[in-house]
């Protein structure tokens, strides 16, 4: 296998149309605009049944009894299953820690936990049957925050932990703890001229992907099952599903169906095992589709957090030290909490040079909804807090907030708090310069020849102001996100590439298990194949488990890692094709042996541009196919005591400038513009890159001013599980988002690219908060900001 990250020869592929660097259009675009693209909720099968999950109505309780008799008696009901009906001894699953019951056993630990499942011939019949299951609960006290979790008499959320983190946490209600100590923060604090402290609160955000959790499980003749599913990682699902069903992995076939967004919310299993259990029990295909209400209970959310920060600086505006403590609420089950803790701690000081740090991040077990992966993954919460701190410090020092950040900005060669050197471009100061240099939107932009256009004002069509009481503010923020799976994880991907002549044309087929969730990985894979193999026609094979794992569509990693795997496989195919050419035609032209050979425009050419052969003639009826795994540079675990270690693969940077207008009387905010500058290394598809940046920016806007799952602190019950009460930005809430894309190659990555999906989600939120603070003069230590926080009526 070639060494990882060998820089691409620029010559190969540059002459092929539709290759990397072009804004080619999505291969699935036509199907998606005609309504023919088959999402997981669109699956249909003759004679299929509908599955329904019964969920707990309380957050923490012992289950005294479950009576399914009435539900089973309902006409049209084919099966009702509880914990007692599970077929094997494996009754739990989980991404890292297998602590999540397939169906509740003896106890429920959060509101909405699955207790029983039903299959019936109509979804309404299934719902009514589930409602007839009688569950008697004996309620237990709820753990809802750090105080109740870690108190001396605290009830344990999990009584018998045996996972690999229990040995290094102070309390069984802590999932994982990661300290990072570097330099001498106490000594450095003594040198500080200014010290600022802050306590920050980050609300619980939901991924709110639009395509609900859904899928179709079809029993197969060999006793196995075929699952058509929307997920972020087929092979991770498979590893968790098969043992619960008591089937070998080869008997659980998985095909990716259309995925309606993910953003981290499909890393954990939702209805996968339940659908398979019901299909195997009834011998019929079973479809499960959550509605929006259930979706809020059916996946993990972004960890809400409390963040305690102390920053110091000298009078000339250089950071001396950072001390921080980040408390993430992991909810009832571990999900991705340990990795989120690793990110939150290792990225906790942001893209700045600080030699003396004392950092601690923990995730708690509570009875709140389970939290796990969401776009930005632990780095988001920290960025909100450290950027607020940077503004506070700048104010104390009388410095411009952008200039203060630039004075402390990291660059290539900076050592992270973990001791890891940043060994590729880190243009933090430049991104800030660029975002600041963009032209500002005009003052009083709501004014038109016909008076005020209320649609451009805070309050919008509610017509609450025509400009009275409206104040403008501007804010800046910058962030750092890791790319790829970290801390020593074997983060590989696999690609199978085939090249052959079909209907007189050379065609490449790319087969991976990558979950296309909307990000456009399929577009990029076709571009890579065109560039590397010099063909016009590329077929993207549907993703399934008939090929090796692609890893997760998470952590901004798929263009890097599966893109890298496709590139690598194409390079190997290219070598074999050239070998065939040499065998067939080598004696006709000396260049076959002596020149650098390229595949371009369906031909074998020399690097001097001389055509040696048509690929059609080289291949004839021969097909070249191979499947190869590909890995990026390995990473290391963080030391559990000091946090030292080369834990990350690559870093990604974005900066934002937010312009807001605030109706200070009513506490209403209108974001006028949210400009972003981001380094992407190499834009493989510039149109998709900008789309990712704008989408990520908007999710950051959402958690700045509207998005929060409200959990009742007394009962740990979710109060707003609907799009009526959990608001995500509409097109009226979302401003123009000008994007400035910088391309500084990372020599370690394929084509020099940088993973891009998450970085814009980080700095968007603190930029909006900074702008609101700038407009109102308020301190605002929590997000999202609601009207009552601005009017003093909270």
């Amino acid at each position, binding site marked *: 296998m070639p060494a990882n990250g060998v820089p691409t020869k620029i010559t190969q592929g540059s002459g092929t149309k539709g290759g990397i660097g072009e804004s080619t259009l999505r291969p699935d675009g036509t199907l998606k605009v005609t309504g023919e693209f088959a999402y997981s909720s669109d699956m249909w099968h003759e004679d299929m049944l509908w599955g329904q999950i019964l969920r707990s109505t309380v957050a923490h309780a012992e289950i005294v009894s479950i009576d399914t008799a009435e539900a089973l008696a309902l006409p049209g009901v084919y099966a009702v299953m509880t914990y007692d009906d599970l077929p094997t001894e494996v009754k739990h699953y989980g991404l890292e820690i297998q602590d999540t019951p397939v169906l509740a056993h003896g106890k429920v630990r959060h509101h909405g936990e699955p207790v029983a499942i039903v299959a019936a011939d109509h979804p309404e019949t299934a719902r009514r049957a589930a409602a007839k299951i009688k569950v008697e609960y004996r309620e237990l006290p709820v753990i809802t925050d750090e105080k109740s979790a870690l108190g001396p008499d605290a009830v344990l959320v999990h009584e018998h932990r045996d996972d690999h983190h229990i040995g290094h946490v102070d309390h069984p209600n802590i999932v994982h703890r990661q300290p990072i100590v570097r330099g001498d923060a106490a000594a450095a604090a003594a040198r500080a001229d200014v010290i600022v402290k802050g306590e920050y609160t980050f609300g619980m955000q939901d991924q709110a992907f639009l395509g609900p959790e859904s899928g179709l499980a079809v029993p197969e003749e060999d006793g196995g099952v075929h699952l058509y599913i929307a997920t972020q990682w087929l092979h991770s699902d498979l590893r968790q599903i098969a043992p619960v069903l008591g089937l070998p992995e080869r008997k659980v076939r998985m095909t990716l169906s259309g995925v309606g967004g993910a953003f981290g919310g499909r890393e954990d299993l939702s209805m996968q095992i339940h659908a398979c259990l019901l299909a195997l029990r009834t011998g019929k295909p079973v479809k499960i589709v959550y509605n929006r209400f259930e979706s809020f209970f059916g996946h993990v959310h972004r960890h809400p957090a409390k963040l305690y920060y102390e920053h110091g600086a000298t009078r000339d505006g250089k950071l001396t030290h950072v001390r921080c403590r980040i408390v993430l609420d992991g909810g009832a089950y571990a999900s991705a909490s340990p990795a989120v803790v690793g990110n939150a701690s290792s990225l906790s000081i942001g893209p700045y040079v600080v030699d003396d740090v004392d950092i601690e991040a923990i995730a708690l077990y509570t009875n709140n909804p389970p939290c796990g992966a969401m776009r930005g993954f632990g780095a988001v919460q920290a960025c909100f807090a450290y950027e607020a701190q940077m503004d506070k410090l700048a104010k104390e020092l009388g410095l411009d907030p952008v200039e203060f950040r630039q004075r402390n900005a990291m660059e290539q060669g900076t050592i992270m708090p973990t001791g890891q050197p940043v060994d590729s471009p880190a243009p933090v100061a430049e991104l800030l310069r660029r975002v600041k240099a963009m032209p500002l939107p005009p003052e009083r932009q709501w004014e038109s020849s016909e008076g005020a256009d209320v649609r*451009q004002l805070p309050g919008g069509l509610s017509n609450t102001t025509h400009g009275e009481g409206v104040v403008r503010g501007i804010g800046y923020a910058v962030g750092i996100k890791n790319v790829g799976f970290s801390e020593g994880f074997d983060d590989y991907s696999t690609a199978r590439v085939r090249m052959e002549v079909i209907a007189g044309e050379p065609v490449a087929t790319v087969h991976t298990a990558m979950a296309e969730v*909307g990000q456009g990985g399929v577009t990029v894979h076709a571009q890579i194949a065109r560039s590397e193999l010099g063909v016009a026609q590329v077929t993207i094979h549907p993703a399934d488990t008939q090929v090796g794992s692609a890893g997760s569509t998470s952590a901004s990693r798929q263009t890097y890692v599966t893109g890298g795997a496709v590139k690598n496989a194409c390079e190997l195919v290219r070598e074999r094709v050239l070998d065939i050419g040499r065998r067939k035609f080598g004696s006709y032209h000396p260049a076959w042996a002596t020149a650098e050979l390229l595949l371009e425009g369906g031909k074998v050419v020399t690097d001097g541009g001389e055509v040696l052969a048509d690929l059609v003639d080289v291949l004839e009826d021969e097909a070249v196919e191979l499947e190869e795994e590909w890995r990026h540079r390995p990473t290391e675990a963080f030391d559990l005591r000091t946090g030292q270690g080369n834990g990350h693969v690559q870093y990604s940077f974005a900066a934002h400038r937010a312009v807001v207008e605030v109706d200070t009387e009513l506490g209403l905010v209108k974001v006028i513009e949210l400009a972003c500058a981001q380094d992407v290394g190499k834009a493989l598809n510039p149109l*998709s890159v900008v789309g990712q940046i704008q989408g990520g920016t908007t999710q950051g806007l959402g958690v700045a001013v509207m998005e929060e799952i409200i959990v009742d602190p007394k009962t740990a019950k979710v109060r707003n599980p609907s799009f009526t009460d959990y608001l995500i930005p509409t097109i009226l809430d979302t401003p123009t988002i000008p994007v400035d894309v910088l391309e500084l190659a990372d020599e370690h990555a394929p084509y020099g690219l940088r993973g891009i999906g998450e970085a814009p989600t980080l700095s968007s939120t603190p930029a909006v908060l900074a702008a609101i603070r700038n407009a109102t003069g308020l301190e605002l230590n929590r997000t999202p900001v609601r009207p009552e926080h601005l009017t003093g009526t909270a």
Partner: protein
Amino acid sequence: MRVNFTVNGRPQEADDVWEGESLLYVLRERLGLPGSKNACEQGECGSCTVRLDGVPVCSCLVAAGQAEGRDVVTVEGLADHARQRSRGGSEGVPLDAAKGWAAKGGTDSQAGEGIELAPIQQAFIDAGAVQCGFCTPGLLVASDELLEHNPNPSDADIREALSGNLCRCTGYEKIMDAVRLAAARQSEGV
């Protein structure tokens, strides 16, 4: 119960419809038209938007029985709908011109080469307004309806008209671009 109505110009009959079923459910599960989407099923997201006697509605909030005898256009019928509108010669584009919008440059197997699209559908592809695509059908129906009655919308008009359609992927910028592009092509008669 039995429900009779017209979908995308064809008479349809759905049998054994339970009274509580929505128009969305009947379209998706009984008539084999899953293009209208089920993102919230509570009238908040607009992914299920269809035209009911010409008016854009959330089909999840319409009881199937209410569609009796009425005319429904879904995303699956949008290209035909646009074509008929242009034949009608009102303010649309001529048929020959409309053919110029057929999917182009589709060299990949899934690009659907040769499928004739409505102008707004092509504009969504060209502008990069489609990511996961789950909001796309509803946005297409709503945008097409906007351009039908307002061929030259301002940005504020577009935002107002599409404010009932949630998108979680794009940040709406490319959706704005797509509607502007379709309007521009329409006014140029491309």
